[in-house]
């Protein structure tokens, strides 16, 4: 399910900048559709980022993260070719992962 995630990891100096966009509705459960019916809550709750399978960033999210969540984070000590992967889990039990290799900026 890599298709629902865009990732980029660039090494600049000794810092790697990782950018991620996940396709996800992030529904709060408070919004109504065109017929006045509440749209059920559907949002990512847990996101884990790893560098060569070691956890670097563990996130817990609520409904206040915008639709199609965007995230930038920074790693020290990553090298060109290192693998960064992101896995998310949402409130409906859906999950997906993406992986990318660090490149020189």
């Amino acid at each position, binding site marked *: 399910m890599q298709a629902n995630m865009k990732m980029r990891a660039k090494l600049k100096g000794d810092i790697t900048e990782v950018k991620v966009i996940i396709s996800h509705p992030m529904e*709060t459960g408070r919004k109504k559709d065109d017929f006045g019916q509440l749209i059920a809550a559907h949002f990512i709750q847990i996101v884990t980022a790893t560098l060569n399978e070691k956890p670097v960033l*563990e996130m*817990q999210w609520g*409904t*206040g*993260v*915008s639709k199609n969540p965007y995230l930038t*984070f920074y790693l020290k000590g990553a090298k060109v070719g290192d693998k960064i992967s992101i896995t998310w889990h949402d409130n409906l039990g859906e*999950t997906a992962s993406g992986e990318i290799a660090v490149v020189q900026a």
Partner: protein
Amino acid sequence: MLRREFLGVIEACLGAALLLPFRAIAAAWNKAAFEAIKLEDAAKNLAINGENLSKDIEIIAPDKAENGAIVQLEVLSLIPNTEAIAIFVEKNPTALIGNFMFANGALPQIVTRIKMAETSDIKIIVKTGEQYFTASKNVVVLENGCG
């Protein structure tokens, strides 16, 4: 024990082991903190018991947001040994936006996009060991982002 029974036990154990990672994660999501309406209650559920104002937390967000559905926010902690950054929007229907926990060389700096229901303070709480530090920034919201 009959061989069939024994295999059944093995199967049950394997099944439980396979299910465990997801259950462990699901259980770890802090439901009480995220469903709390008031910021103080959300913070309490993150085990935050009082925080000190700090000038070493940078919050980069617009002074005015046209659309509260997407407010870009950058947070950077210059406090040594920052373990986690929690983001709150005081006047949202539920105040806690997210909690970001750093390990193994991740720098305490993130950029993300959040929803803001109305003009409010964005409050950041940084965790270092047993201590907590805070900074806030007000953002004027022209259009409700929670629908």
